[in-house]
Structures are given as structure tokens and as C-alpha cells.
């Protein structure tokens, strides 16, 4: 027992918790595969109008219901519109709807969860009963009713999807913050006079970032599916605007289903591949953020 402070000669400089999670994510093979699919899809969807000669709603009267060819790579549909252009435009709409609705539902979900956990017993009970209510509504019927009230188009679709998906997140956030509230470093912050905004945004948010990121990724995949489902039913994105869902809608006709498979197969494949890839990424992120993997 010497009184002098004996330090190990040099402390190994290591990365912050977020960097370590990202490193683990990059090592995950499925997640890398997911990125490998999603990144080109996103780039193509965002930039296609600069390099693809056909507009999604431009009609080529010489090519109606024509199969894939050198000019129309993925063929054309019944009124001579280029399937590839519509596919990319549909992807653009799907991604916009998914990203916006997830962003909205994350904000609502985080705030509701945060207020429930830090607001005291009465606020918590009220907010959570409200969440229970929102969760017990049968989702498909709720969607149909909301969509029929809100109408079709991009903005109503975003609204409908985001209103449906925040309750689960707010529960997860609440559970995390309830636990966090009693942790010593949060008590220390309170002891230094921290108010609610400081606690929520300096401690709550950084410690929920794993939940939020994983939720966002998986929910984007989910939102793409919801949007496709709604559009397929004619309640989401209305024609002539393209979306993967309303392109699939064409397959309801037996003639299209049997004789012009390129008109529904490519949007279907794009939907499956993208959702699958995003799910891989989400799973990879979840594993990367798992606190147990910190122990290695």
C-alpha cells in the first residue's frame, strides 16, 4: 500500500461506444451484404432521372406490353410506359414515404416514451394507457379507415404509416429510460441541477440511440411493405404515380400475370430484395449495439 498514485504507463486509447458498435456492424457478413444491395438501390433511385432516357409516365406507343429489350431493359407496360423508369420512380416514392414516416414516428415515439418515463406516475399511466389503446387497434382495419379518411397521395400515406407505428417504439424508449433514470450518472446530473431537457437529450437520447437506429432500419422495411400494401389496395399512392405497390396491382389481371410477367416480377423482386437487405442491416445493427457483445 503505497500512498503515491501508481498508474499503468500508458492507457490504451480506445474508441467510443458508438465507434465500437459500428466496427462490429461492419464485421457482420449479412449486414455487409445488405449494405451491398441497399446502397446501389438508393443511388439508382435517387439519380435515375439523370441517366435513364425514359420518364416514368412517358408513353411509347411503339412498345406496348413489350418484353425486356435493348431499349426498354425491363420491358414496358400496357400503355407503353417504361417498366425500369417506373420501377425506379416507385422506389423513390417508397423510400420517401418510408423515411418520412419513420422519422415522424421516431420523434413521436421518443417523446411519448420520454415524457412517460420522466413525467411521474400519473403522466406515465395516462400515456401508456393511450399507447395500449393505439396498439390494440387492429392495424389493417385502422390503416384502411385512416387511409379512407386521409385519402390517397404521398402525404396522407406518410401520415397513416407514421401514426400506426410509434406506439411500439415509445414502449421501448420508456422501458430504457425508466431504467436509466435510476442510474447513478443520471442521479449525479440531477444532483448538479439538471432539468428535464438536459436529462432527455444529454442522457436519454444517447442511451436510446441503439433502440432508435435499429427500430428505424427495421421500420423502414416495414413501412415500404405497408406502403406497397396500401397502394396495392388502392389506398396509398394513386396511379398514374408509380409505386411498387400499385405496380404489383397490375398483376391482379390474369392476362398480365400470365403473359407479361416483367410488369409485376421486377417490382416484386425489388420489393423483396430491398426489404430483405434492410432487415439484414437492421439485424446487424441490433447485434452491434447489443451490450453483451461489448464483453467479447
Amino acid at each position, binding site marked *: *500500500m503505497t*500512498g503515491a*498514485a501508481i*498508474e*499503468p504507463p500508458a*492507457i*490504451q*486509447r*480506445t474508441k*467510443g*461506444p*458508438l465507434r465500437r458498435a459500428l466496427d462490429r456492424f461492419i464485421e457482420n457478413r449479412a449486414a455487409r451484404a445488405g449494405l451491398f444491395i441497399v446502397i446501389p438501390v438508393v443511388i439508382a433511385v435517387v439519380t435515375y432521372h439523370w441517366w435513364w432516357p425514359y420518364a416514368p409516365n412517358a408513353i411509347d406507343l411503339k412498345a406496348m406490353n413489350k418484353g425486356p429489350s435493348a431499349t426498354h431493359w425491363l420491358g414496358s407496360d400496357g400503355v407503353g410506359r417504361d417498366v425500369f423508369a417506373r420501377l425506379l420512380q416507385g422506389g423513390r416514392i417508397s423510400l420517401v414515404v418510408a423515411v418520412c414516416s419513420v422519422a415522424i414516428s421516431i420523434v413521436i415515439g421518443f417523446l411519448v416514451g420520454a415524457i412517460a418515463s420522466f413525467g411521474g*406516475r400519473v403522466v406515465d*399511466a395516462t400515456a401508456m394507457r393511450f399507447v395500449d389503446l393505439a396498439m390494440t387497434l387492429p392495424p389493417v382495419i385502422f390503416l384502411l379507415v385512416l387511409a379512407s379518411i386521409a385519402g390517397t397521395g404521398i402525404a396522407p400515406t406518410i401520415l397513416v404509416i407514421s401514426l400506426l407505428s410509434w406506439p411500439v417504439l415509445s414502449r421501448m424508449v420508456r422501458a430504457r429510460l425508466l431504467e436509466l433514470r435510476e*442510474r*447513478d*450518472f443520471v*442521479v*449525479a*446530473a*440531477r*444532483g*448538479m*441541477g*439538471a*432539468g428535464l431537457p*438536459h436529462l432527455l437529450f*444529454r*442522457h436519454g437520447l*444517447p*442511451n436510446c440511440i441503439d433502440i432508435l437506429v435499429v427500430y428505424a432500419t427495421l421500420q423502414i422495411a416495414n413501412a415500404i411493405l405497408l406502403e406497397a400494401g396500401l397502394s396495392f389496395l388502392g389506398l396509398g399512392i394513386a396511379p398514374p404515380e408509380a409505386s411498387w405497390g400499385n405496380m404489383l396491382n397490375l398483376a391482379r389481371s390474369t392476362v398480365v400475370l400470365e403473359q407479361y410477367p416483367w410488369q409485376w416480377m421486377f417490382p416484386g423482386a425489388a420489393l423483396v430484395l430491398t426489404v430483405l437487405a434492410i432487415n439484414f442491416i437492421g439485424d446487424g445493427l441490433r447485434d452491434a449495439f447489443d451490450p453483451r457483445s461489448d464483453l467479447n
Partner: protein
Amino acid sequence: MNAPDPYLSVRNLTKHFAPTAFSRGPVVKALQDISFNIPRGQVVGLVGESGSGKTTIGRSVLRLIEPTSGEIRFDGKDILTLGAGDLRRQRRNMQYIFQDPFASLSPRMTIGQILTEGLDIQRIGNRAERRARAEKALAAVELPVDAYDRYAHEFSGGQRQRIGIARALTLEPEFIVADEPVSALDVSIQAQVINLLRDLQLQLGLTMLFISHDLAVVEYICDTVIVLYLGRIMEIAPAASLYARPQHPYTQALLSAIPSPDPRKRSKRQILKGDIPSPANPPSGCVFRTRCPHAIEACAGVVPGLRETEAGHLKACIRDDIPA
């Protein structure tokens, strides 16, 4: 104990944990009628078994939990009646050092962010001034300045505990509650951290409430010692007097359990029977009577108040004929 104006004065502090509207269960009487004073610049030790309410006192005094009733005065100001803004300003003067150095530092913040957090909350100084104060605090706890940009997981337990101490110091408080600051550390590191705390206390003239169950550490660092049992004070005395002449049977039993380094001076151990009773259902009268070797029938009847038996030496026991 009747100094003219104590820095901290606690009067009839009581904390009951009641079941919520949605749960059943008894009311847990964690603290009952706790009163004590801490003069400016002194270190008062709070000892007792697990579950005796030490941490509850420490946190109540800083109003980190709301007491059920009582009065807590800093320099005459009752902090239980302060409004939000006044309380926030008062918090600059009172800080807490935590027991577990692994739970008390946020894993997602750098040491710099942890140390400047209080200054940030209290809006003291600009960025550079905050950094300067944090670095000063790092130097005060003998850590290298380049710790500033690191994360807590890069440090050992003893280093983390010193970071926790540095955090308490950045606001330059007058009063610190040290809640078992060394019990989670290795014995060799304990001595370092205790000496550091002692030096800082003397240098900065800090007033301190030192919570511990390690009687040797308390004897070393404290001026006055409060012995706590099941949410009630058993004995308050200056450290020298308490260790030389413990008067309460509980204190006597506690002190007899300190191992002596001298094998020839083997004192008779007094082993207490049974466990500490549940604070949800404490014994009537003296809470210690169920385990007290000197208990008599009258002990069940009245709750013994604190009485002064020597100058500054108070005990809560109705018997005066107990052999020391």
C-alpha cells in the same frame, strides 16, 4: 453538538416509502426522526449495516429523494421548501460522490463531458473556462490531463472513482456527501482514494457527510460519527470518544467486530444474533431491542430519545448501567 450555527442541520428527517396506487405492500419506514448537525469544515461519518438507511439520508440531504417530513437547513436555508430555481443554484454548493465507480460515469460521455456537465447545467463560464476548471479538477485528483478526451471504460476502478470525485469538485461545492466512496475498490486503492479525499477536504475546507460501513476508515477521516440502525440514530459522538468509550450496545457490538492487527490483544467478540429486522415492520420501542444483549422489558415500551451522556456524546438507550 450545540455549536452556534451548524452548516448543515437536519431536524426530524423521516422517509417512508409507501406502496404505489397499483401495488400492494407495507409502508417501508426507511428513516425515522433523524436529527443531526454538521459544523462547517467538519467530516461527519454515518455508519450502519446494509439497509439501515445510510444512503437514504445521504440522498435526502441533497434532495435527490424527497423526504416524507423534516427539515434540512444549509446555512439556515431549508432546502425542502426551495423553489426549482433556488434549488438549482443551491445544488452548486452540494455534491454527491457515488459508491460504484462503474455505474456513476456515463459510458457514452468522455471524461471531459462528464466533468463539464455540472458547469454546463449551471451555465458557468464559457467553453474554455469550463475546460480549465475540469482540468484543474483532474489535476486535483492526480489524473493526467489527457484523460479529458477519453471514455470512462478506459480507466480502472480507482481511477474512475477519482473521476467521480473530480466531477463533484468542478462546481466547487461547500458540502459533499461521500456515499461509501471506497467500498467498491481494492484495499490497496482504498487507501489512495481515502487519503486523496482527506487531503482535498482539508485543502478546500469541505464539509462532508461520509457514509461507510468500514469503521476503521470512518475513525481515520471523521470528526464526528453517527451510528445508524434500522432508520434510527443509535449514537452520535466525536470519533475519539465513540471509539474509546462506545455507550450504546449496538455500537459496542459493531466496534468489537473490528479486527485487531495485534494478535495478543484479542478482544472478546460480541456476536449479534439474528438479522436486522424489516424496516416495514420495525420492533416497538427501541428498534435494536430484538438483538440487544442488554434488552429489558422496558425497552419495548418507549422509543428512546437521544440523551447526552458526556459532552457531545449522545446515545439512544434507556439503560445507563451497561458495562463499557
